[in-house]
């Protein structure tokens, strides 16, 4: 049988329509298309895709089940190693992980592994009846700090082994970045809620409104009888550019803008939490978070949204699919541009003018690419005298975060590196016995799946640690 060179397309909402709503962009495969796509898998012996997955999903096995139309069985295979299949199927950068290793990809497009994973997870969520059964308890307690992807994965793996797991969450809702960061149109909140529900059925307890490092310390968790602690507290303080004008009204960090829109539902007309809507926006940065912020601003009614990024399209770190979606929706990419100043309104005649202090423009300098830097990417160099202004009403800074300082400052003996990331060994063990960590709190801003991978590794190490005690 001839190989079909391209992936089966995934239907999406029309760009002109979706730019004005928060519904999901990609609509998912139908069963028929999923089976067709599954047939593209060569089921090769080497299974390079599995090695490309941070949580080692048994990819060829689950795809084989899809091919047979055994969707629930396919789901169970995915779920055996991934606690959040419906999430991963949507937000994993498969093109640099499993799919990049696919044997087909040497000559053609890889199998649409992510699309198939999403399909089986959605199928399960729609059709599965009955609850997940909590396994036999082993009576040992583990505390998880943070309910983002690393924490939920660690919690799920330990709960499946019979541990009594409590997840402590600082915010009022579980899910971490999946709730406050990734927007509805890319990851519907009901999918995250469903995954959290499944964990609860496994016996995982979720305690919201508890800030570890403030409400309770790591040491107190041990006093309370937890035998191990996993810290997955995520990325923390947003980085700013340290250019003049960053305190004008209308300058947001991507974290704040997205949290207001996602967690606090500021996009709704009846929202209690305010957010700036409409007008012109500039988003500074080129990662997935920048794409999310730009597309959120657009959906909130912005008439114009720029992405301002200092390197070229080739270096843009966001997933290709997200960039394409953003372009289709009309986001204006100003590449090889770097902000040097944010300008604000000032009425010299009236210090009480309500417009005073609001953003009016972002001043940028054009860049060109020079020699490669430490990251291997060509270093952007400013072109003298090329400054220009983009008239905007708001600026969203999306240039990364630094790890949250709260736990480190109240946990004696917990070592961090020079930029604040918790230091761990290959098992996720920190400098404190029984304390493990993973995700952005360790690596700085990274992906959902790498955080899940870290949660998984730590869960295995915690299990071994407690069993050998």
């Amino acid at each position, binding site marked *: 049988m001839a190989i079909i060179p391209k992936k089966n397309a995934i239907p999406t909402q029309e760009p002109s329509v979706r730019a004005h709503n928060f519904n999901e962009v990609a609509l998912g495969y139908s069963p028929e298309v999923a089976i067709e796509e599954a047939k593209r898998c060569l089921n090769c012996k080497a299974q390079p895709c599995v090695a490309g997955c941070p949580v080692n999903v048994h990819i060829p096995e689950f795809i084989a089940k899809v091919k047979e139309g055994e969707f629930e069985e396919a789901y169970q295979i995915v779920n055996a190693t991934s606690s959040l299949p419906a999430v991963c199927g949507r937000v994993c950068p498969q093109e640099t992980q499993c799919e990049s290793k696919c044997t087909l990809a040497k000559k053609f497009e890889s199998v649409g592994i992510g699309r198939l994973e999403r399909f089986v997870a959605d199928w399960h969520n729609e059709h599965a009846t009955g609850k997940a059964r909590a396994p036999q308890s082993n009576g040992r307690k583990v505390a998880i700090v943070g309910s983002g992807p690393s924490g939920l994965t660690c919690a799920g793996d330990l709960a499946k082994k019979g541990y009594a797991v409590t997840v402590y969450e600082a915010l009022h809702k579980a899910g971490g970045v999946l709730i406050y960061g990734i927007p509805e149109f890319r990851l519907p909140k009901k999918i995250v809620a469903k995954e959290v529900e499944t964990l609860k059925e496994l016996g995982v307890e979720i305690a919201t409104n508890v800030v570890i490092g403030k409400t309770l310390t790591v040491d107190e968790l041990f006093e309370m009888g937890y035998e191990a602690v996993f810290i997955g507290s995520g990325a923390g303080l947003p980085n*700013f550019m340290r250019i003049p004008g960053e305190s004008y009204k209308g300058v947001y960090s991507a974290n704040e803008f997205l*949290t207001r829109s996602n967690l606090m539902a500021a996009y709704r007309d009846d929202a209690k939490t305010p957010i700036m809507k409409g007008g012109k926006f500039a988003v500074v940065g080129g990662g997935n978070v920048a794409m999310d912020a730009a597309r959120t601003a657009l959906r909130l009614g912005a008439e114009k949204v720029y992405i301002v990024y200092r390197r070229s399209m080739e270096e843009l770190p966001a997933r290709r699919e997200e960039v394409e979606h953003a372009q289709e929706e009309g986001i204006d990419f100003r590449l090889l541009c770097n902000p040097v100043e944010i300008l604000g309104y000032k009425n010299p005649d009236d210090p009480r003018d309500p417009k005073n202090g609001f953003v009016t423009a972002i001043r940028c300098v054009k860049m060109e690419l020079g020699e490669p830097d430490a990251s291997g990417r060509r270093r952007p160099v400013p072109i003298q005298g090329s400054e220009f202004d983009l008239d905007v009403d708001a600026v969203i800074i999306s240039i990364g975060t630094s790890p949250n300082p709260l736990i480190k400052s109240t946990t004696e003996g917990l070592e961090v590196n020079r930029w604040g990331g918790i230091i761990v060994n290959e098992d996720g063990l920190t400098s404190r016995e029984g304390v493990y960590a993973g995700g952005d709190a360790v690596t700085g801003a990274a992906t959902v799946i790498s955080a899940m991978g870290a949660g998984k590794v730590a869960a295995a190490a915690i299990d071994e640690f407690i069993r050998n005690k």
Partner: protein
Amino acid sequence: MYKILTKKRLNPTVTQMEIEAPLVAKKAKPGQFIILRVDEDGERIPLTVAGCNQATGGVKIIFQIVGATTEALNHKEAGDSIQDFVGPLGVPTRTDGVKKVCVVGGGVGCAIAMPVAQEFHRLGADVTSIIGFRNKDLLILEDEFRACSNKLIVMTDDGSYARHGNVTVPLKEALEAGEKFDLIITIGPLIMMKFVVATARPFGVPVTVSMNPIMVDGTGMCGGCRVTLIQDGKPTTKFACVDGPDFNGYEIDFDEAMSRGRIYFDFERRAHEETCNLFKLQ
């Protein structure tokens, strides 16, 4: 859900509540704050802790009814519950090495200043409290301040009660009379704190100010609460939720903080009006 244990109206626009949150009550120290949501879909608002009761697990908050959320909170009664309550957040007020302190509170800021004055009093420091209000009707916590202060001066802007004038007047008098405070700590409207700093500056007395910027998460994630400090002539960004809320008054860029505080002014005014009308209909 977090139960409201007690509720007391301190003046027509300021209410005191005790919320049942034993973990917070056990930990909270003067100067720290909590974040609450009144109901599902509600906004997160920061409020400073005004005291704790270990026996009941109650955390005291005092709030001014200024917007839709505080309006909704004020419509709750003892026995009702609120959706979320998290804390204690922020760094406690530093008290070490202070033998003689002047606490300057303005309006509802006195609710935050009060536990700070109490803490200094408990630690054996000499406490002078200067508290100011717009008028007699807005006066709060006079007895509480009297109980924990070696000296208490009450001011009203319109002279309708106690002494007529701003809090900076008696502060300046005390400094000119040679009072040697180790620290002045001021909590209240930004404009008042700005002038307290200006009053203290010629005398070289350290001033701590308590900032209350707009916040979302309160745990060092969103960056919305950033304040600019001028350190060694250079602007430095700090986050009130994890670095504060207390800062060195001489370093704060007050004008910027005042401007940033008004970003959602229109939204809030509209929301408050809508809330009021809703309640009127009921």
